[in-house]
């Protein structure tokens, strides 16, 4: 049943529109802020229902606020996604044809790769052989910067990966375009670009790096959930965001069973491949 939206819902939605994507902690804070601002009933554990009310109204507009996991830190994010576009064309208001072609090629490289990234060198090479119109080095760098700013790509040490928002928004398109070529996480069943793979040649299942952290946490003898071969890769730590006073409780609930002392080096370590 679609309930009419209160001002608190609209404010939440407007903020989502401005930001595109926000992490779980900010979503909870925003929920509280919106309810308090407009004197709406607030319950800290009712965020999902609050969003469902908004989504019911957004559905005829082919938009939804969706939850997704970041491949980088394993945290949950909320993103406003456009359901109507099944293609990269939803970006075509902001990017020229050849820039979109570069983005598509970057996506090809990323999906193809072992570690879900594409190096700037490889992307620059693509820029040189675009079918629409070639891009020079400086122009390519400029486009890549914009793509990062607009939250389609992440950049780290010259390597580019698809942002959480990008994956959430384009998951359908990615699956349709790449079919069997794209890796899927055995644990959470979403598209998996930054992941580990079972080394058993007859198995070969993939698991997101953060999903690995959670699934194998605390196990001394990690085994592949599908074929039970030894899981040879380094099991990263579960990422714990730097906790603020009010957020410690909810952060603990969100990720795993709470540990007695917070870990200091919170980042998940990248796997070392042979």
């Amino acid at each position, binding site marked *: 049943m679609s309930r*009419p*939206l209160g*001002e608190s819902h*609209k*404010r939440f*939605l*407007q*903020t989502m*529109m*401005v*930001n595109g994507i*926000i992490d779980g902690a*900010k979503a909870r*804070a*925003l929920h509280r*802020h919106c309810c308090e*601002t407009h004197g709406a009933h607030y319950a800290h554990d009712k965020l999902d229902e609050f969003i469902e009310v908004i989504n019911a*109204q*957004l559905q*005829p*507009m*082919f938009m939804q606020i969706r939850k997704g996991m970041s491949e980088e830190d394993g945290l949950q994010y909320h993103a406003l996604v*456009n*359901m*109507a*576009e*099944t293609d990269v*064309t*939803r970006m*075509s*208001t902001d990017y*020229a*044809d050849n820039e979109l072609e570069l983005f598509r090629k970057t996506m090809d490289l990323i999906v193809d790769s072992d570690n879900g990234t594409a190096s700037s060198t490889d992307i620059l090479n693509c820029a040189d052989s675009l079918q629409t119109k070639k891009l020079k080095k400086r122009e390519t760098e400029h486009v890549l910067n914009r793509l990062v700013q607009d939250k389609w790509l992440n950049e780290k040490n010259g390597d580019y990966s698809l942002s959480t928002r990008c994956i959430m928004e384009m998951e359908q398109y990615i699956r349709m375009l790449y079919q069997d070529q794209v890796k899927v996480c055995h644990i959470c069943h979403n598209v998996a670009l930054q992941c580990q793979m079972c080394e058993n040649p007859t198995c070969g299942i993939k698991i997101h790096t953060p999903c690995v952290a959670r699934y194998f946490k605390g196990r001394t003898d990690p085994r592949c959930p599908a074929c039970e071969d030894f899981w040879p890769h380094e099991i990263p730590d579960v990422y714990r965001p730097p906790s603020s006073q009010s957020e410690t409780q909810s952060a603990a609930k969100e990720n795993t069973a709470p540990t007695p002392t917070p870990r200091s080096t919170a980042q998940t370590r990248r796997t070392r491949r042979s």
Partner: protein
Amino acid sequence: MSQRKRASNTQSSQNKGVRSQRWEAVLGDDEDDPSFTQPSTSQVQKGLDRLTPAQVDLKTAEVVQFIFVKDQKKFPIRRADIVKHVVKEYRNIYPEIIKRVGCVFETVFGLKLVEIDSKNHVYILINKLEQLEGESLNMSPSNPKTGLLFVILSIVFMKGGVVKESMVWNTLKKLRVDQGERHEIFGDVKKVVTDEFVRQRYLEYVRIPHTEPLEFEFRWGQRADMEVSKVKLLEFIGQLHEQDPQSWTQQYREATAPPAAPAVVTSANTSASVSQR
């Protein structure tokens, strides 16, 4: 004919078919489409009878998306563009579509679609939710241009609603914003203030007649009138000067006067027939 074909397309691709056109073509400024005249109420009803609710809903969604895209720069949106690029062959039910679109903006997003020019049929999308000061939960780095705009709006308001261009520049210069120099954040300040803010309808930049050399004055634009709370502005200035906002009696009176009703897109004015316009 083409409508029946569209019917089958939409039924099967309900969730996918909102937009397939290329947007770049759509973003350029078009000339006014002289062939579009507002259909009458009976024409609209006939048109609606021939379509399924799903088709009308889909078209409404497309217009909403289109307006969001066009609104990104905050420049006004022309009815001609909406009709040409999105509504297309559904133009005979345009009033119904735009009415629903207006409704969606209000009930879902807390925005208002306002026709600011009923002669040339131009709309702007304004925010009905109060912009809270220090809304750090807005999270995105606040646009520095907003600060600049706010200063100019304050100057104009405190001076009674109209201010000579030179006064604005002199005041900004004291804040180290010089129209003659390239500003590290705003770039070409003169362009931002006299072109961008004006196109966005935040300011009006009007020639003062019979001035030699040519002089201009600033006034609040229609968007500022609708979006900016004069009361809040006065409170802000009060804080700045550590004075009670009410100490500026004239400005306070103006700030608290009931607002003039804007031409909001409602059912009342969209089903009007051509002859009434």
